[in-house]
């Protein structure tokens, strides 16, 4: 029989307001095995933890039940507490009477009754707890960063700076991501390329960093400290060790009419191309969908002009297998497609553009060389209308995104300001619902757009854009403050499209078994306290894959993710989860049912000699669990026909005891 102590937490008024904590500790004090029961305002505080420690010593407790918030919140805290008092840290159970009781119920009597039952279930379970000792597993001292935008770049640089090896996998032919497409950055208006390209070069030159560009993660196996990853290096049809990036081939390729992704289709590229001058790695790539040689075996011009002999039409995709200790997701975002918002005439007029397209139209490396010209006729626009929140902040059941995309208010202010600065003859209107500018120097930036640059900010929305044959765009909008419907003859309309996670994120999350929210943003382990970690150990989050973020936030988070990775890689050994499967050799009949369902291959079989009656022995085949590999899912425990396989910490008898305690009302 255990000597159990029960500790009921008030959590200030979070629990105490709806649960009669005194009644709970009183009632649980009478449960069999309970020798001590108390309640306190904040069990997780130092004073609270001391109450637990003192009670363990004073009452010689062998088991502890804490009725408090979710074990997902403070189980780890309390495990340390009991260990500090000399008890095995797995002699603890937490009854969740906050998230799953006080916060969801209003009736005090009902909530109190439920809290008592949950406490009883925990007591019943702890009766059957046994001390567990965690094993250790080694750490592979190399990190993988998936995505080579500013988030991935910053994370990789910071990890490499601490002396660890790091690989970047980027699906595009070059690293750099969205930031390479941006012209200026708010709120300081420095040039994006000027601050980004040196970092790209740093990545390329850092001997700790290895870049797999034009590559994708294909398979992830293993667990924290020991991930095994297959990376597919897509065929570029160019030998990257020979290519000098001279660009001769891209000049001579006869396939000229391929929409250039880097400029969002606003101009064309060739079938062999280098995305932009500062690309890293700066090597050419052949687009197999458009190359005549690859499609029909005719042409071969690029091979002829390449003095380095780098062209290789026979190149194949290559699979690289690598081991990693930690994985950082930095898959970033994309603007949404605007097909469902054609009231703004995006599909009808070339002069209705998305903000990212506008970014290219004002970028010195863009299709117009940085001169703002209308895509339809190449003329200088005089009246520009910016529309905010296109597809953001929509109701969940509708077609848009329910969240605020966060970056649009600021980049629109930037666009509007730059328009007025470079072309003082323009009239610039910004239609907004709310201007959201919380951030250092952000609101000041937006106010400058209004006060110094004379941008017309109008509270209201655009309802319809009608393109005319003379190239004018008739914008119909509401001005809520003057209660008017406006009709503006514009030359260009710029839509601040909502942003969404990159499409590659969802399949990647499945591979990583990392959870996502309903919008396909990665979920953090704790919304406030563990913002750069995924709930899956060893997986970290950097940048907009976790939620909409601007560049300063992304870089800050990228650094935070790197520091978490460094913290992990700095360890030589990791403590394993001791709640792993265990086979009772006396009961096991070696049927292999458990082996078949194990997703980790943690179960193997050994022939073992057993003593039999009459001083004989027999050799039997029995299952053995590799505790370092077992992740403790429990699939094998149910598959086992003889009941030999059980899960430590969640044993059959423990769960049954909980069931019994709950049903015995």
């Amino acid at each position, binding site marked *: 029989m255990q000597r159990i102590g029960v500790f009921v937490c008030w959590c200030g008024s979070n629990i105490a307001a709806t649960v009669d904590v005194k009644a709970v500790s009183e009632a649980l004090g009478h449960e069999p095995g309970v020798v001590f029961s108390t309640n306190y305002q904040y069990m997780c505080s130092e004073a609270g933890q001391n109450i637990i420690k003192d009670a363990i010593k004073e009452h010689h407790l062998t088991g502890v039940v804490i009725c408090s918030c979710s074990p997902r919140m403070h189980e780890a805290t309390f495990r340390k507490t009991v260990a500090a008092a000399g008890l095995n840290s797995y002699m603890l159970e937490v009854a969740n009477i906050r998230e799953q009781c006080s916060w969801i119920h209003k009736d005090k009597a009902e909530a109190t009754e439920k809290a008592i039952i949950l406490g009883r279930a925990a007591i019943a379970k702890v009766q059957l707890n046994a001390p567990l000792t965690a094993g250790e597993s080694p750490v592979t001292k190399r990190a993988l960063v998936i995505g080579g935008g500013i988030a991935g770049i910053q994370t990789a640089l910071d990890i490499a700076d601490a002396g660890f090896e790091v690989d970047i996998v980027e699906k595009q032919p070059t690293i750099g991501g969205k930031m390479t497409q941006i012209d200026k950055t708010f709120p300081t208006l420095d040039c994006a390329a000027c601050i980004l390209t040196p970092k790209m070069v740093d990545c390329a030159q850092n001997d700790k960093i290895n870049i797999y560009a034009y590559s994708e993660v294909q398979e992830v196996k293993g667990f924290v400290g020991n991930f095994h990853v297959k990376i597919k290096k897509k065929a570029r049809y160019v030998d990257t060790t020979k290519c000098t990036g001279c660009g001769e081939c891209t000049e001579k390729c006869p396939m000229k009419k391929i929409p250039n992704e880097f400029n969002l289709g606003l101009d064309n590229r060739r079938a062999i191309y280098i995305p932009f001058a500062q690309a890293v790695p700066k090597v050419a790539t052949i687009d197999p969908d458009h190359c005549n040689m690859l499609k029909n075996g005719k042409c071969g011009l690029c091979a002829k002009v390449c003095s380095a002999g780098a062209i290789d039409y026979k190149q194949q995709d290559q699979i690289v297998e690598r081991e990693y200790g930690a994985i950082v997701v930095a898959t970033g975002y994309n603007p949404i497609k605007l097909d*469902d918002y054609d009231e703004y005439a995006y599909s*009808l007029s070339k002069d209705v553009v998305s903000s990212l397209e506008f970014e290219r139209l004002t970028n010195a490396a863009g299709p117009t060389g940085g001169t703002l010209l209308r895509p339809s006729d190449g003329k200088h626009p005089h009246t520009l209308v910016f529309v905010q929140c296109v597809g953001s902040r929509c109701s969940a059941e509708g077609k848009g995104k329910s969240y605020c995309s966060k970056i649009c208010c600021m980049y629109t202010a930037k666009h509007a300001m730059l328009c007025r600065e470079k072309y003082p003859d323009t009239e610039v209107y910004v239609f907004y619902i709310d201007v959201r500018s919380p951030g250092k120097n952000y609101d000041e930036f937006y106010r400058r757009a209004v006060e110094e640059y004379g941008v017309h900010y109008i509270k209201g929305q655009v309802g319809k854009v009608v393109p*005319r044959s003379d190239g004018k765009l008739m914008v119909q909008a509401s001005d809520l403050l003057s209660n008017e419907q406006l009709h503006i003859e514009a030359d260009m309309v710029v839509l601040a499209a909502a942003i969404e996670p990159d499409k590659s994120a969802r399949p990647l999350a499945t591979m990583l078994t990392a959870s996502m929210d309903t919008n396909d943003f990665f979920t953090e382990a704790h919304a406030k306290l563990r913002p750069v970690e995924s709930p899956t150990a060893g997986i970290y989050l950097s940048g907009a894959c976790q939620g909409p973020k601007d560049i300063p936030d992304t870089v800050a988070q990228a650094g935070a993710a790197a520091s978490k990775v460094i913290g992990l890689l700095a360890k030589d050994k990791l403590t394993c989860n001791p709640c792993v499967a265990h086979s009772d050799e006396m009961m096991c009949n070696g049927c292999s049912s458990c082996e078949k369902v194990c997703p980790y291959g943690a179960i193997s079989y050994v022939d073992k000699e057993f003593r039999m009656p009459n001083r004989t022995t027999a050799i039997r085949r029995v299952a053995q669990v590799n505790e370092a590999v077992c992740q403790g899912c429990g699939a094998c425990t149910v598959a086992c026909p003889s009941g030999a396989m059980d899960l430590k910490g969640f044993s059959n008898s423990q769960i049954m005891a909980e069931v019994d305690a709950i049903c015995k009302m």
Partner: protein
Amino acid sequence: MIFSYYPGCTLKNKAQDLDRYARASAEKLGVTLQELENWQCCGGAFSMGKDEIASKLASVRALNAAKEQGQDLVTLCSACHNVLKQANDAMANDAEFSDHANNYMQLDQPYRGETKVIHYLELLRDVVGFENVKKAVVNPLKGRKIAAYYGCLLLRPGKVMQMDNPENPRIMEDFIRAIGAEPVLWANRNECCGGYAVMEDKKIAQKKSTAVMENAADMQADTLVTACPLCLYNLTKNASGEHRLPVVYFTELLAEALGVKD
């Protein structure tokens, strides 16, 4: 292929062309349209009041009649299509309304929105197929630049109508291509002509129809096509200004292309 067919009051009267050419073309395309017996006027507009019951029952009766025939129901007039489709949606998804309506009607089997309502354009797209329409064309309307005018009733509310993307539709444009003409893309194709408000306030109908007409003309269309008698009326009678394009029912052009226009 046999379908139940709901013509609606206007097609029996001022918009006989819309109906006549549709029937002739359907026959040519191998589709039989069986006019429902004893149909009643749909009321022209779907009352948006959730507690309006009686004004929606005529539509429900028509829907139930098609269900009893075991046929999908084809509509042609945009207004009828809109009303029947919305009534059907309410019968299927608004339990309170559906219960009230069923209580009132005392049918043998309660009606819960089982009938599939399709517009004649959807019949062409999804049943016949625009490819087959194209094959059946004997008199392609080459060189014609036609602006498809959807108005509001065919597309909205998009959640219920589900004919096409309500902001970027293509069904009529594809139809125009199928009969050999060139579709003109223009923004006001899904803006209102002024509708029934012509009864209350002619000015607004004039203003709205003119805006529609001007935009179509500006984008170099030579003809406007519509599926709605009221749109046709407003655009021909109430649109003012220098640009006055001919407005015809889409079925008339279809019949012309198929060589069944008498």
